[in-house]
Each structure stands twice: as C-alpha cells, then as structure tokens.
C-alpha cells in the first residue's frame, strides 16, 4: 500500500533521511516507527503525506507516485503530533470543516461518545484543555473509514480511560484489515499493539522486525531494555570506530527478510 524508495531529505545541514527503503504492504498490521528524538520519524511520516518534500527518492501509495498529488490523501487518516486549531471555531465547526473538505463518509459520533466530547461540542477550541484537544484531533483523524491510519504520538495527553478505549479501537481497526503506522515513545503501547517495529536512527533504518526478534537479539526480557540496547550499542560503535566491534554488526543480521534494500 505504501512504498518508500531511496528517500533522502535534508534540512539545511542536517541530513534527516538517508536513503530510506520501506514498504508497508500487509493489511491488518500495526507498525510502530520508533527512534530517539530527531531520528526522522515525523519527517518520514510527513513525507508520506506530502507535507515534507524529499529531495531524492519516490513515494508510492497504492502503486501511484504521490509527488504533486493530493487526492490520495483521502485514503489516509492522519493524526499530527501537535493539536492546534483555529481559536475562534467551535469543536462542531472544526469537525464540519474537515467533513466539508473530505466529503461524505464521515462518522464522528462513535468518537464523540468514545472520548466523551459531547459537552464540548459547542465550546471554542481555545477554551479546551490539551487532552481534550487531543481527543478532538483523534476524532478528526479517525472519523473517516480510511484504509491507512498514520498516528504521530496518539497517546499524548490522554487520560487512562481514553487511552484504553483508543487502544481497543486501534485493535479493531487492525482486525478490519487496515494498515496502521504509529510513532510513539511509549514502549508499553508498542508491546501491546505493534506487530512490527521499524527503528530509525540518524535517518536510516536500523532495525525492522517483530518485537520478539528485537528482544531475542539483545537477550532482554522486555522491549524497553532491548531498545536501550540498540542505543548503547550505537554509542559504543561511535566511540570504537577504530577497533573491531564487540558484537558483529547486527544490522545485517536482524533485518527482517521482508525488508529489501533497493
């Protein structure tokens, strides 16, 4: 459904993406895109949506190149990282605005119920708390039955009840055969939901595979330590560039067979 071919992006002197090759073809799968701050997660997601324009490489959604296109975005539900809305519009009006732009097919009622937004519908958005804004943000991203969902930090600011409901909903969507891409720093969410991990480091894919593979690789019981393992290993390699690495470079060893370098 999504193919990224040799993607390069630089912001000024900073090379953010360095030749990313990825494909997300399987429906009914949740992929977690992980990596430290500044590793290129958001840039990667924004490239798929056409918000960031890569210098080199190609992105295809459903087999068609997306460069200069906008209609393909009706296939994607996107949750941006920061929720900010026009201050003078009410929650209802913002929902209507998105419905107006995307056309028929929206069903926001379940989410209004799911996140308890009913009392806020006629309130202006600048009067809402951060968590409530995030719920509005989620409603806007999820109210269309899009085959692809891309969620950037979906749990930010959510209370525990909303969080549980969101996770249940995402599992249902996966069952329905949707493709979900999620970035997060919350490892427990990854453990609960993700079928595979794409680990980005300095704009390259450092690991792609099932969470179990990552844990086995680092002989850790939990994912948090396995991920910390990747980072400490990386730092060691940085310090030790001269000498032989202590462990054989695992990059080649643990790359998922599905991942192909073109």
């Amino acid at each position, binding site marked *: 459904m999504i193919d990224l071919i040799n993607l390069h992006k630089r912001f000024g002197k900073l090379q953010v993406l360095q030749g990313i090759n990825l494909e997300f073809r399987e429906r009914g799968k949740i992929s977690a895109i992980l990596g430290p701050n500044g590793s290129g997660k958001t840039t990667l997601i924004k490239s798929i949506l056409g918000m960031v324009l890569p210098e080199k490489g190609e992105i295809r959604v459903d087999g068609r190149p997306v460069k200069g296109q906008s209609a393909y975005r009706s296939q994607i539900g996107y949750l941006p990282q920061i929720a900010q809305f026009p201050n*003078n519009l009410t929650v209802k009006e913002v929902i209507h*605005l998105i419905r107006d732009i995307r056309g028929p097919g929206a069903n926001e009622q379940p989410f209004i119920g799911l996140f308890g937004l009913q009392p806020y519908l006629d309130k202006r958005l600048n009067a809402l708390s951060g968590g409530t804004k995030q719920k509005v943000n989620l409603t806007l991203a999820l109210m269309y039955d899009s085959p692809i969902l891309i969620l950037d930090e979906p749990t930010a600011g959510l209370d525990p009840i909303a969080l549980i409901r969101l996770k249940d909903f995402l599992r249902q969507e996966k069952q329905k055969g949707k493709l979900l891409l999620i970035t997060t720093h919350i490892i427990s969410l990854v453990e609960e939901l993700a079928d595979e991990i794409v680990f980005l480091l300095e704009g390259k894919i450092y690991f792609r595979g099932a969470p179990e593979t990552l844990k086995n690789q680092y002989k850790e019981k939990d994912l948090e330590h396995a991920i910390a393992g990747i980072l400490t290993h990386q730092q060691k390699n940085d310090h030790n560039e001269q000498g032989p690495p202590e462990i054989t470079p695992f990059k080649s060893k643990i790359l998922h067979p599905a991942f192909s370098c073109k």
Partner: protein
Amino acid sequence: MFKILRYSFSDLMRSRWTYFYFGFFLLFTLGLLFLSSDVGKVIISLMNVILILVPLIATMFGIMFYYNSREFTELLLAQPLSRTQLFIGQYLGLALSLSASLLLGVGLPFLVYGIFMSAEIWNFAVLLLNGILLSFIFSGMAFWIALRHENRIKGFGLAIMMWLFFAVIYDGIFLLGLMWFSDYPLEYVSLGVSLLNPIDLSRILILLKLDISALMGYTGAVFEKFLGTGLGISLSFLSLGFWILLPTANIRRVALKKDF
C-alpha cells in the same frame, strides 16, 4: 478553495481583533462626522488614517494569522486538498475579513449620515475602494513573508520593515531624489515612481478625485492630466492589480516548495 476561504473568514470575523479594528473605524468615522459638517474634509481626514493604518493593520493581521494557524494548516495539508487551494483560500479569507471590517466600520456611519444623498458619494467610494485594495496588498505581502520565514520574530520584523518602507521610507528617498535632481524636469519620473508604491498611488488617486491637486503645483497638474485620462486610470489600477498579484503568485510559489 471556497471552503477554506469561508472558514478562514468566519474564524477571523469572530476574532476580537477584528471587532477592535471595526470598532476603531466606526468610532473614528462617527467622531469625524460629528465634529465636521463638511463631508469632503471628513474624507480627507479619513484618507490620512486609512493610508497609514490599513496597511499596518493588514500587515499585522497577515503575519499573526499565518503563525497562529500554523499547526492547523498542517492538519489541512494532510487532507485531500492542493496547496494552492489551501493557501490562496486562507489568504482570500484573511483579506476579505479585513475588507469587511473596513467597509462596515467606515461605511455604516456614512450610510447613517446619508452619503447616498450627498455629492461626495464617488469620492467616498474611491476612498473605500483604495482601502480595500490596500488590505489585499498588505495582508498578501505579510502572508508571503510569514510563509517564507518559520522564525516568527524574523517574520514580524520583516513585515513591519516592509510596511515602514512603503509608508515612510519610500517617500523619504523619493523626496531626497527630487531634491538631488531638482535641476531636471522630474514630473514624469515622479509619476512613474509613485506608481511603484501602492500607498503613494492610493493617496494620489484620492487627492485627484477630491480635486485638490492644485495644491500640488505643476506636478499635480501633470498627474491630473495623466491620471485623468483613460490610460492614466488604467495604469494606476493595473499597478494596484500588480501589487495584489505579486504576493498572490509568490504565496503559491513558496507554498508549493515548502516543507511543513
């Protein structure tokens, strides 16, 4: 595009700054009409305020509107909507809401006063039309600057500099030039140079319409002769049109290349 325009417009029409802008013009115009019974004089006083204040407020609104809606713009960018539709729609919504505040703020008191019975109706119409054109020009220039500069302080600074340049500095340089080359016949040069600054051009158009160009001496006569003709009028409106087209084309160009 029309949908984006409508929502930007209704968002701005509910902003307290828009009310403030509208209220200011309403009170100011009412005050002037109350103090003077000569509508012609009221129009000249209003002209001086409109020519300085409308570009300034349009510049500030343009910058603030872009930076304030930055994150929401990101959400809209993820929708099936082209960048041209999105940004031109936002710009038109902004310019129209500013124009509406001006039109209502200045227009209502004149309407109550009975402008339609007065002989000054056309002078008043030219004043309002110029105010609206200036709103479009300066909000567009500010929107363009904001789009080009992610750094808000820099964007604000540049936009204010842009306003200062057209409202004050340009005239200063112009006058210096006139003094420097005062031995030469400069009427046509100054005519050309005035066409390049939307604020100067608006001022001249209004003054000519008010028929007080005699105050401007020989140059005024040249201006009147030129701008009174079909060619003169077409050239001045063409020039104002160019000043709207310039930011509009650049908003589109920058928007198509930008990373969000």
